[in-house]
């Protein structure tokens, strides 16, 4: 029963309101600081325009390419059954957990100036590839988001009843007619939201821009903020840019809410094979698509593994252990915080009449790029205390904010399910407050909590964003250590760090996810 005859309980209201306040303060205080600092005099637009243009262009291009390539990939995955299909679908989830800076290193090993592809081209006399700039940024974004787009489209396809495909086969529809009758409606539903989500992700993927962008021609807004804060210490310029980033982010997010459908994370995408709807030609196309996609995703991963192992052979590089400890501590702290906030808000959202509005408000708040929040916090605290001193707590805080929307999207439906299945029963028995959480909610949503916490921990572990603004030279997280190693061309050491980083991210995810499922019913 979905009825909400009962008023929202006091506890739910209290914790929910407190969490909302914290989140609102976390976003609004920095934004106010930015607004107070930003002065839009004449001429600022001239200096900001190139980075704005590049940000929009690379994000748009990345989204278009990702979705365009995802269409044949999703179609092939949908209608073929082959050994390793499940693995392939799991593989599509891997880039999501892969720290950006690690992926960049893997991509460099394949596509970089001295990577495998350049070597091959060199042998043919075609010269090495240049991966820095637009090419590299888009390549990295496609690497991250092609799998995401494919999963989103695949979900859309899977929602089509099997009978429609059977009917199409029975009626002997040509591929063109089938595409018009079945595929186009699916794409019309799923593609816009995939485009928007990917556009937003590419707008604010600082680590990729930091490692592969740069220079006046290929600097994103976030990269320009970083340079203004870190090298020029120009707070006003940073604030202006952050406001611009915020405005674009909010516009895109508002747009996305109109179209975007909830994406399901994890879980297998099974269902019956639908291979009867294709001839031999499409079989070959599908095989080529699947093979190319697998190679595109797998090669950088193998490169990280191979280079990482040889990079670690001389022993742990200096500073690695300390950086590892800091990263794990930040990951655990931000996960705990994000989990508490997400649970409190999800309860309120689930039980309040205004739930969907509250949720939209929170998601919108957090569509603000974490980098913008970081910039605002930097400006906010600089008059009082050295930003360096608070590097770690602020990173944990911002990472928690980063994970919150994702967690909310996982936890809220789980709470809704518990209420639908057992709400009336629990109400009838007077199961309320803490007892209700302990005896009913917690055991029921543990798998989702574990999964969400695992994602949060892995994302925090691999994040290279706000920490770059605040970190003093002697303090670093693993991703920052890795970036600094790459910056000083110690690529072997960086590869070693990358391997440790990936292993730690995946281990954290695995431990939380497993912990959630243990003894689950």
């Amino acid at each position, binding site marked *: 029963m979905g*009825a909400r005859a009962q008023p929202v309980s006091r506890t739910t209201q209290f914790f929910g309101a407190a969490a909302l306040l914290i989140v609102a303060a976390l976003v609004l205080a920095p934004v106010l600081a930015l607004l107070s600092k930003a002065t839009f005099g004449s001429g600022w637009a001239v200096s900001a325009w190139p980075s704005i243009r590049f940000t929009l262009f690379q994000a748009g291009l990345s989204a278009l390419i990702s979705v365009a390539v995802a269409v044949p990939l999703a179609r092939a995955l949908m209608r073929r059954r082959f050994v390793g299909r499940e693995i392939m679908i799991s593989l599509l989830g891997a880039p999501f957990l892969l720290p950006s800076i690690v992926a960049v290193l893997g991509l460099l090993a394949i596509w970089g100036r001295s990577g495998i592809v350049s070597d091959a081209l060199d042998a043919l006399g075609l010269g090495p590839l240049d991966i820095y700039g637009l090419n590299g940024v888009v390549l990295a974004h496609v690497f991250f988001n092609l799998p995401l787009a494919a999963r989103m489209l695949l979900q859309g396809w899977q929602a089509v009843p099997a009978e429609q495909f059977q009917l199409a086969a029975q009626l002997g529809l040509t591929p063109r007619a089938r595409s018009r009758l079945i595929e186009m409606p699916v794409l019309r539903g799923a593609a816009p939201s995939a485009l928007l989500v990917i556009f937003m992700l590419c707008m604010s993927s600082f680590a990729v821009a930091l490692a592969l962008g740069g220079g006046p021609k290929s600097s994103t807004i976030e990269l320009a903020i970083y340079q203004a804060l870190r090298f020029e210490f120009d707070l006003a310029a940073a604030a202006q840019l952050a406001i611009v980033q915020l405005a674009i982010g909010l516009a895109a997010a508002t747009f996305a809410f109109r179209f975007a459908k909830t994406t399901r994370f994890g879980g297998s995408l099974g269902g019956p094979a639908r291979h009867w709807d294709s001839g031999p030609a499409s079989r070959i196309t599908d095989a080529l698509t699947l093979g190319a996609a697998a190679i595109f995703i797998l090669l950088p991963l193998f490169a990280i593994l191979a280079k990482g192992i040889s990079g670690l052979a001389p022993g742990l590089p200096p500073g690695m252990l300390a950086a590892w400890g800091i990263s794990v501590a930040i990951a655990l702290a931000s996960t705990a915080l994000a989990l508490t906030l997400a649970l409190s808000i999800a309860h309120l959202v689930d039980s309040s009449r205004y739930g969907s509005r509250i949720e939209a408000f929170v998601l919108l708040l957090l569509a603000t790029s974490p980098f913008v929040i970081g910039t605002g916090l930097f400006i906010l605290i600089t008059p009082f205390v050295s930003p360096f001193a608070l590097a770690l707590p602020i990173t944990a805080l911002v990472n928690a904010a980063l994970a919150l929307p994702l967690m909310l999207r996982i936890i809220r439906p789980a709470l809704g399910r518990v209420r639908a299945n*057992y709400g009336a029963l629990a109400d*009838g028995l*007077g*199961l309320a407050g803490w007892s*209700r959480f302990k005896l009913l909610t917690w*055991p029921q949503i543990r798998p989702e909590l574990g999964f969400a916490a695992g994602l949060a921990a892995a994302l925090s572990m691999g994040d290279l964003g706000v920490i770059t603004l605040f970190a003093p030279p002697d303090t670093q997280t693993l991703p920052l250590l890795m970036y600094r190693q790459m910056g000083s061309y110690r690529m072997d050491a960086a590869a070693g760090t990358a391997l440790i980083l990936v292993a730690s991210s995946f281990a954290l995810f695995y431990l939380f996810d497993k912990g959630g499922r243990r003894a689950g019913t």
Partner: protein
Amino acid sequence: MLELENLEITQSGFSLAANLCLGEGQIAAVLGPSGGGKSTFLMALAGFLPVSGRIRWRGQDISGHSPAERPISMLFQENNLFPHLDLRQNTGLGIRPDLKLSSADKAAVDAALARVGLRGRGRDLPRTLSGGQRQRAALARALLRKKPLLLLDEPFAALGPALRRDMLNLVEDIRAEQEATVLLVTHAPEDVRKVAKTCLFVEGGTVSPPVETAKFFAAPPPAFRAYLGT
């Protein structure tokens, strides 16, 4: 006495009215076609749906009470047990919702389980039980809650004839022991004849007042004849 005065339940595009009194200590069958509102009627009595009008129990207005405050235990068609709690815990919720049970409470839980034929199954999880056993465990919890009104929303519909007969006997025993008043939604006329003293007919947006079972079957309303197909 249960009195329903101008009770009206309105859900999107559906409404149900009831104006009736029901004597205590009896089993009353709630009959009617599918989708007629039998479950809705019980859900509203139990406080899960917003209503207008009055629900009085022994003269006291309980329309504003929360489900837990009402003198009511309700059994749904399924999902009466929390799947992650064992039978002892599921049943113990009937004594204390926070499950802080004294040793006397625990003994009472075990006795209730034994009473419904689940002796020694206290540590088992619901999924290891058959459908009938799960409903027995839910009945054990209702026993412990000692609420004077027991609402049964087809909890035995999925059971075979022999099992259903056993369950009905159990319900009848509970009614006799606890002097409870039972409202039983069912689709089976033989169940009604076996245990129900009166019948309430839910159809066309109204719950008609109770009629003695013998009279009801002697002169069934036309809609009920259509429903039976006789």
